């Protein structure tokens, strides 16, 4: 017996069986897949998962009464006498043996907390006839949760002739879907939440069909993807909802950016877009300051020390202020080197470069942006020629001087090359507001915050895992609104932590987050958004012509912040956690659609209206 291959819970059960016989398994059989009959002559048997090479041959194990149910695959199930566990572990093709467990339906926790099962029972809705568009890292086309429901994949990352919306990438259908792979896993997980079909980890709209855009995450290509999905939906004559579990902070945070504008232009009856609010609730990525006429003010930001892959090789500030104001800006480095003040440049290039000993600083100060009539400035800091590895660590300072001031308010956001936005503001100018950027800032989009419905789970080896979030509360990482200018965002909150859903076979997963073969657990406003996307699909199934304004109003009216009266808006919760069953009130009166039985009459709402012959 090779003990290292056997999961701890199963090993303990084996040892108890070895020591005490069937009686030793009584404590285990409630949770493990064991078949134990104390009074019977039959030996105890176990149902297990085996991890092995995809093409491993295991038929020979039948001679030891070990029945492996699949002839291929990296994870297989097997049925064997518990006493033969050692023989199974001795086989060189077997990498790991894990007990099958009586699972708790993780995904059912999230829907249950928002009374979704009651809503679906009452309405019998499943998303049938509706298209869900996912623009993301792709999808695992072989995952059983999406069987026969992925209609098309536009893989923008592969070479190819493209589609009418962009002559890049390749479009796949049918047997060719498998050419496209999701090696990151994010898109597969998102799609599973919105539309996965599975008894334990099923999604919200398990009968909706899927249109997938595997994106490079360039805004322009995401915009092309939205147009592609809605064009295909129009050709098919079906309603569609697009899910965007992505975002950034290089925009003005007021919905005037081009991606948000395209979302607004393309949305309409039966054309809905859902966006994630963002995960910067705990991060000081936004600063706000008011600069007086003739005065100077300072905004401090910190570049952390790091090296290797985590090194900050690029730090930037994206600043916005009213077009009626004029400011000069300068940057001071950790060791006190400062650029000159630079005002708005209206002629020629508005970019000036300053080589400080602590870094190369590029200031861009153009005239007003015609899309919102505000001023934008950009500060970029790169390593100096002498220190090519990273931007100088320490406290940098943005200095502002008020030349002409009417409003005086300046909002700034940090950007950097790190995975987790490590450059942050420090000091009194930090503001826990306005952290929802494009595309969540789009006026017509339904922008979703995250609510925590689960904080503990067991990984696939049965080990208990826990996250530090507060249960049954808004997730602390969920980004706060409102938008710059005061527009209310996010719109509503939905379960976004910890959510179990489909795992792409081509994506790596940390063992702590693998909960069952083909499924993983994740958190983020990325996970909350497809929950609402799926709900929107259910609503569109019933009323395919619902427009974004009505859809948003119904979702807001069906949401509530716990312990607050209905209708209250909060910059973190939006209008609160969606209560799915509350949506039932919009379905109580059947649609008054005419029925023409073919006998010359027309029936409307149960009333017969004779037609002229």
């Amino acid at each position, binding site marked *: 017996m090779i003990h290292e291959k056997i999961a701890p819970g199963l090993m303990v059960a084996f040892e108890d069986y070895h020591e005490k016989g069937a009686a030793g398994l009584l404590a285990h059989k409630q949770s493990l897949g064991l078949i134990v009959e104390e009074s019977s002559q039959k030996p105890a048997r176990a149902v297990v998962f085996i991890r092995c090479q995809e093409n491993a041959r295991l038929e020979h194990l039948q001679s030891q009464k070990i029945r492996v149910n699949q002839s291929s695959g990296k994870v297989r199930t097997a049925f064997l006498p518990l006493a033969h566990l050692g023989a199974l572990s001795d086989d060189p093709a077997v990498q790991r043996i894990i007990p099958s467990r009586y699972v708790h339906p993780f995904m059912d926790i999230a829907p249950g907390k928002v009374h979704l099962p009651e809503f679906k029972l009452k309405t019998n809705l499943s998303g049938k006839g509706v298209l869900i568009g996912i623009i993301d890292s792709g999808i695992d086309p072989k995952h059983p949760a999406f069987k026969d429901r992925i209609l098309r994949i536009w893989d923008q990352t592969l070479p190819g002739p493209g589609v009418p*919306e962009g002559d890049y990438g390749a479009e796949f259908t049918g047997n060719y879907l498998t050419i496209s792979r999701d090696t990151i896993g*994010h898109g597969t997980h998102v799609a599973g939440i919105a539309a996965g079909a599975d008894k334990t980890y099923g999604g919200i709209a398990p009968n909706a069909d899927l249109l997938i855009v595997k994106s490079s995450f*360039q805004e322009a290509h995401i915009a092309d993807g939205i147009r592609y999905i809605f064009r295909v939906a129009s050709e098919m004559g079906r309603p569609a909802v697009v899910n965007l579990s992505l975002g950034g902070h*290089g925009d003005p945070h007021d919905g005037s950016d081009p991606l948000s504008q*395209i979302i607004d232009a393309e949305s309409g009856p039966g054309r809905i877009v859902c966006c994630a609010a963002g995960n910067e609730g705990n991060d000081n990525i936004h600063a706000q300051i008011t600069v007086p006429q003739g005065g100077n003010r300072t905004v401090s930001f910190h570049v952390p020390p790091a090296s290797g892959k985590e090194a900050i090789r690029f730090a930037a500030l994206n600043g916005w202020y009213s077009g009626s104001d004029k400011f000069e800006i300068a940057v001071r480095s950790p060791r006190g080197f400062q650029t000159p003040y630079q005002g708005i440049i209206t002629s020629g*290039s508005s970019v000036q470069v300053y080589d400080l000993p602590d870094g190369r600083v590029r200031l861009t100060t153009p005239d007003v942006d015609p899309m919102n009539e505000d001023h934008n400035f950009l500060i970029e800091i790169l390593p100096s020629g002498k220190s090519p590895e990273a931007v100088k660590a320490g406290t940098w300072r943005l200095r502002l001087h008020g030349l002409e001031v009417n409003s005086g308010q300046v909002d700034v956001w940090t950007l950097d090359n790190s995975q987790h936005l490590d450059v942050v503001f420090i000091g009194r100018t930090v503001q826990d507001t306005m952290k929802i950027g494009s595309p969540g800032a789009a006026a017509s989009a339904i922008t979703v915050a995250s609510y925590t419905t689960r904080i503990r789970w067991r990984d696939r080896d049965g080990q208990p895992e826990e996250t530090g979030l507060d249960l049954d509360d808004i997730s602390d990482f969920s980004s706060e609104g409102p938008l710059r200018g005061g527009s209310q965002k996010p719109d509503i909150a939905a379960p976004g932590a910890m959510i179990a859903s489909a795992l792409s076979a081509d994506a790596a997963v940390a063992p702590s987050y693998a909960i069952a073969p083909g499924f993983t657990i994740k*958190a983020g406003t990325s996970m909350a958004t497809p929950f609402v996307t799926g709900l929107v699909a259910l609503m569109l199934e019933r009323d395919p012509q619902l427009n974004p304004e009505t859809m948003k109003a119904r979702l807001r009216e069906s949401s509530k912040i716990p312990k607050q009266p209905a209708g209250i808006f909060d910059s973190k919760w939006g209008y609160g956690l969606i209560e799915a069953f509350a949506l039932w009130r919009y379905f109580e009166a059947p649609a008054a659609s005419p029925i023409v039985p073919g006998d010359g009459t027309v029936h409307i709402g149960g009333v017969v209206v004779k037609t002229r012959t």
Partner: protein
Amino acid sequence: MNYRKVDATLAAALAETENAEEPRLAVFIHMKEAPNASAATFLETLGVKVNSTRQHIFTATISPREVKELSKQPWVRYVKLSQKLRMLNGK
């Protein structure tokens, strides 16, 4: 180049380039109004398909030289650099 029609991030990206043909920049092109025939022809030289007469914003991947030419067109309102977004799953 009409720099008044180019946003801050695009201006910064252009300042870095010495080669008029590289790099290829993904941009949004904001029109003053829906494109007429001459605007549509020009956009097509940039690889932009004008699929709809209702659209006011187009996407393209173009060179610095093409940005310069675009900025001179009277029907162009603004040209903005496309930025890369992130997935929003947790940390």
